[in-house]
């Protein structure tokens, strides 16, 4: 594909609001995870919570969209000059030439969970103040961001579980390539809810400690919440200091709903497709941000795929020990991790991981270190075996 300019990005994670706190945590190798005290959840696990969402407000004209997920989106929009950057591009290109493609796995489902508890008579109708369309539905997030930023271009919610927001980049790139749009807001938002906490618990995939990807004693995930918004723009000239989306690759495992293909066959196809789409060799990649959830089978399968594509030398790490597994937002958050790694000349580490599993072959980085990073690849794999890999670079080739 033709490279697409990354013109702006912003995020909100458990580390704080805006890209600044994430950038500092990447440099110092610190974690934002804490013991779970979310809502009425009584599970013995650690989570990543965006600070202050309980007090977060949406603009009054969009109050009907109020839910934790859209608050998380708002927490990010307000940072890093993102709103101004989007409005400038929309002003220059036209609002109908800017698309919105965002990933989310559960959107505002927390509102439905709470509404079920408040049913009339315990089993009657949901309370009248429950607004399904503007909170619970997957498109609520896209609708909110589109209205918030005054955009009129093509739009869709992407929902392929934990690869959702990575696939948003791939989708937007196709719209740009087809000439339908000149720019797009991509990435995604997922927020804490009981469905994912109790759901991953039912699959026995929650760690009782902060997650330890690639560790010999890794025992599950830590769920996090995050918003990650990235402005992509068509651009035909070189730009000093800019970063670019160079390629995207997608595949399916065709294997199982919640277990990865044991040999990482689907993961390998996605990475190879991403490199092909970017027109770069595996040896040109300086850092791989792994999906690296911290479950025994996920990390083992991804490791096999990494070895098959890259051999054993490319520096890799999972940053889920910092942010938690932010599910449908993970692809967006980790795209930003890659952009920061390139801008700051940094290979991120893996807080929480002590001793790398000797059965895993990848060159796994435990602590952050300074190194020139020109091209990165980020992996995101989801339930249903839906995989997506993205390649970013400092130069448009």
């Amino acid at each position, binding site marked *: 594909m033709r490279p697409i300019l990354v013109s702006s990005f912003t995020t909100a994670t458990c580390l704080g609001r805006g890209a600044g706190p994430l950038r500092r945590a990447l440099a110092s190798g610190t974690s934002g995870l804490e013991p779970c005290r979310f809502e009425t959840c009584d599970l013995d696990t650690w989570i990543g919570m965006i600070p202050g969402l309980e007090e977060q407000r949406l603009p009054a004209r969009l109050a009907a969209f109020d839910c934790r997920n859209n608050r998380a989106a708002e927490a990010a929009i307000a940072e890093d000059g993102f709103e101004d950057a989007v409005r400038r591009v929309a002003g220059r290109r036209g609002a*109908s030439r800017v698309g919105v493609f965002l990933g989310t796995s559960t959107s505002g489902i927390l509102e439905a969970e709470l509404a079920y508890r408040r049913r009339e008579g315990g089993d009657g109708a949901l309370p009248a103040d429950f607004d399904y369309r503007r909170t619970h539905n997957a498109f609520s997030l*896209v609708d909110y961001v589109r209205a918030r930023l005054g955009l009129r271009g093509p739009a*869709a919610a992407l929902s392929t579980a934990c690869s959702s927001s990575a696939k948003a980049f791939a989708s937007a790139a*196709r719209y740009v390539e*087809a000439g*339908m749009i000149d720019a797009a807001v991509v990435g995604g938002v997922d927020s804490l809810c009981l469905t994912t906490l109790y759901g991953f618990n039912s699959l026995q995939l929650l760690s009782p400690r902060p997650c330890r990807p690639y560790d010999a004693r890794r025992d599950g995930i830590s769920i996090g919440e995050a918003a990650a918004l990235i402005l992509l723009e068509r651009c035909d000239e070189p730009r000093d200091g800019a970063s670019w989306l160079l390629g995207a690759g*997608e595949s*399916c495992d*065709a294997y199982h709903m919640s277990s990865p293909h044991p040999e990482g066959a689907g993961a390998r196809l996605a990475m190879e497709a991403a490199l092909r789409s970017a027109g770069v060799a595996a040896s040109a990649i300086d850092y791989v941000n792994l999906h690296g959830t911290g479950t025994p089978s996920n990390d083992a399968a991804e490791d096999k795929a990494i070895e098959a594509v890259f051999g054993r030398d490319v520096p890799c790490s999972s940053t889920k020990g910092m942010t938690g597994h932010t599910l449908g937002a993970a692809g967006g958050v980790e795209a930003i991790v890659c952009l920061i790694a390139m801008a700051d000349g940094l290979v991120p580490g893996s807080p929480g991981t002590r001793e790398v599993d000797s059965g895993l072959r990848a060159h796994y980085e435990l602590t952050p270190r300074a190194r020139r990073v020109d091209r990165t690849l980020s992996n995101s794999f*989801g339930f249903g075996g839906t995989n997506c890999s993205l390649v970013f670079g400092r130069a448009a080739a």
Partner: protein
Amino acid sequence: MTLGATVEGIGLVGPGLAGWSASRERLAGREAFAAVPTVIPLPEALPATERRRAGKTVRLALAAGLEAAHMAGREARSLATIFASSGGESENCHAICEALAGADRLISPTRFHNSVHNAAAGYWGIATGAMAPADAIGAFDASFAAGLLEALVRLAANPAQAALLIAYDTPYPEPLHGARPIADSFATAFVLSSDAARGPRIEARIEERPAARMDDASLERVRAGIPAARSLPLLRALARNAASSVSLEYVDGQAVRVELRP
């Protein structure tokens, strides 16, 4: 700015619409249409274990997708897929919310992994062996048109790989049904390719005005009652197989205009 494709195959499961080939005369207005409740066929393609695990939303999507792939004479596993649905796994979503409102909050692990919006895409891969890219998207009542655009830009980016769009919705049980009424189950599927010789051509573009209603009152009730049935104007035009133009509901008061050239 328009996007084009050849329609090679069509699948359909809806109220009074049991399969595309069985429904053509009815859709074209040459036979009487009555919206009797949708019957969802059993998915023969799924292995027995997965058939037991797959809920009705998955079975609905797979039935439409397989009919379209068969009509196109394409191997299902060769197709890139785009799954479009407003709410996805309606029954699993309800069951989980119900369990979470109860005292013990016990969720079945199968129920949980089947609750993802891309559950149908996952089962499609397991049933057909397809490792090709699969999208799962939603855009509330505009989900069909959003899925159509997604399929068309995917085809534009890779003209060599035919794309299968499957749009589907099932009703939520109460009490969610009261907050988001969906009249019945409906799925439609289209195999789209860049090979002009293999079927009628469609050209699509976004227009800044709301989608039109259908003149047939019974079909209009189905169209307006189920997000995936917003596809009915296009299905009717294809059933009539005459040069024509239809408008499909898109986001925020916009429509996707589709020109059909048989």
